[in-house]
């Protein structure tokens, strides 16, 4: 069987984030990056299937040169092959455009199973996974807590509000968007990391995948206008004194502001 794992490289959780002077995004130049935490669980889930049965695990990522580090880590952990979409014209893409690129890879690869993370630590969109599923016309499950294969079916547990789980059955091929903390993510052995250099890493452009018209700032239906840190608000007034004083003060204040 073939499993496609889509992963994103995001700023390291300990990185200091400074917003660019034009407010378009954060300054990426001098910070460290890592694999999006959700995606590490997705990859682990795929590798566990590979531990159990004959399977090829292909990892795919979109991003600049630095993204090869993330793919190499994934190969070091046990993935067989990597596809890296490294193309400046992709910059400024919205979630749908990203999904179209990943879906184009999906069409080429025809996997039996696609894993994504539930969302990315940086953008928090939580929409790429379901969009890819839709574009590939596959059933999908989000917030996946466990996955087990039963013949041509996949049984997944989904996280619901309040700690409840929903058990769903999906027909293969299908896509799973994985929640964090669902397994213990393995370490890449150092030998694995060194050997990862010898595993195939395919670098592609949007044009190679036939999606050049569909991506980038031009095609984006959602454009980021600005990123900013809201200023700390000032002027909170703390009422002091006995309970009665505070209550009377509060009522007086409400009347003064004409809120009643």
């Amino acid at each position, binding site marked *: 069987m073939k499993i496609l794992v889509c992963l994103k490289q995001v700023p390291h959780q300990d990185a200091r984030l400074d917003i660019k002077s034009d407010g378009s995004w954060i300054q990426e130049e001098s910070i460290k990056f890592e694999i999006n935490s959700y995606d590490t669980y997705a990859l682990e889930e795929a590798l566990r299937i590979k531990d159990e049965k004959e399977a090829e695990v292909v990892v795919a990522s979109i991003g600049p040169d*630095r993204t090869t*580090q993330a793919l*190499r*880590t994934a190969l*070091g952990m046990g993935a067989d092959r990597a596809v890296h979409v490294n193309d400046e014209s992709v910059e400024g893409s919205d979630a749908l455009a990203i999904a179209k690129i990943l879906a184009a890879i999906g069409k080429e690869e025809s996997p039996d199973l696609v894993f994504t993370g539930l969302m990315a630590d940086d953008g928090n969109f939580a929409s790429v996974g379901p969009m890819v599923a839709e574009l590939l016309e596959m059933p999908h499950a989000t917030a996946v807590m466990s996955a087990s294969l039963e013949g041509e079916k996949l049984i997944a547990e989904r996280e619901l509000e309040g700690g409840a789980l929903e058990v769903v059955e999906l027909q293969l091929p299908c896509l799973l968007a994985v929640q964090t903390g669902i397994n213990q993510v393995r*370490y*890449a052995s*150092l030998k694995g*990391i060194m050997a990862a250099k010898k595993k195939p890493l395919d670098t592609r452009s949007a044009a190679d995948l036939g999606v050049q018209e569909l991506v980038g700032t031009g095609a984006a239906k959602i454009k980021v206008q600005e990123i900013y840190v809201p200023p700390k608000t000032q002027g909170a007034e703390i009422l002091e004194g006995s309970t009665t004083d505070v209550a009377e003060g509060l009522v007086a204040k409400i009347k003064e502001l004409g809120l009643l």
Partner: protein
Amino acid sequence: MADNLYINEDLEALRTEFNRFVVNEIVPQGDNWEEQGHVPREVLQQMGTLGFLGLRHPEKFGGLGLGPLSSAVFAESLGASTYAGFEVTVLVHTDMASPHLIHSGNDDQLERFMGPIVSGDCITAIAVTEPAAGSDVAGIQSTAKKIDGGYVLNGSKTYITNGVHADLLIVAARTDGDNPRGLSMFLVKSDNPGLSVSRALSKHGWRSSDTAELLFSDCFVEDADLLGTPHKGFYEIMKNFQNERLVLSGMAVGASQKALDITYDWTQTRKAFGGVLFDKQVIRQRLAMLQARLDASRQFLYHCGWLMEQGVDATREVSGLKAVSCELVNEVMYDCLQFHGGLGYMQEATIERMARDARILPIGGGATEVMLEEISKRSYR
């Protein structure tokens, strides 16, 4: 992108793994090990399985066959764990004791020991220091007398890291009468009946590292376990000095940065005088100067690793690195503890342990004063 000239993509990838391991596997358990006084064997074996114990060792024994820069990266990553006792348990094994086998071991010895050393099934210690001989290695008094089929060792060793729990000790003893440099090295297995732990020592810091005083009484060692050339042990011990100093410096650099990071966090949240401590220029500037000196020291670490990797004699540079980085880490700890106020003096504070742990670094593996003599000898024409 790597953050300095000397680090390639491979080393950067290894660093990522080391850092992740430290955060997930070491930090949550370190307090227990501090209490127990040693690091559990399973942890060392786990590191062995992942390949951490064989960075420098040949591939045919399961290692990666990398150079000194990999040790610098490894030591710096471990150095950020805040449990220096754990760090030195590992680094004595990987970079201070087992390299002697690589330098001086014959095929039979390598065959017998290297596999288990790389896997973590055989943990090593280096036993040179004695109650009456520390910095002055030529003052060693333990003797090894040649008899039929082997040697008989007598004497004692002290401050031996991993001395209680190691499986294999590399021991220096006098074999050439009064010749002050007439030492030889021996491989002594911990189950040798002539070897006993006379004391497990209680220390100011490095509390998760086991440190022993050892007694050798008529301890018989077979000829096959003589390590290297007889009477040349003094020179063989010296072969690993630079590597030992490189990793101790790596620990110092890693710990310094971690302590500064902890202190940036603390001073930016601790409220005082209508703001936070970091608003005080005197605090910001003290930390900034330490950061600048640390940045310089960190580049020097990698520069020294690179010099060693080129195979040149870097004794002057590495001695300087050891002196600078191991003194600096203590200045860093002093100021960082100071800015934590009373909390810094409490055992619940990470900085309290880090400050205790740092104190040994300018003493062990070549005291600062000894390092400065090494620089001095090589500085003038």
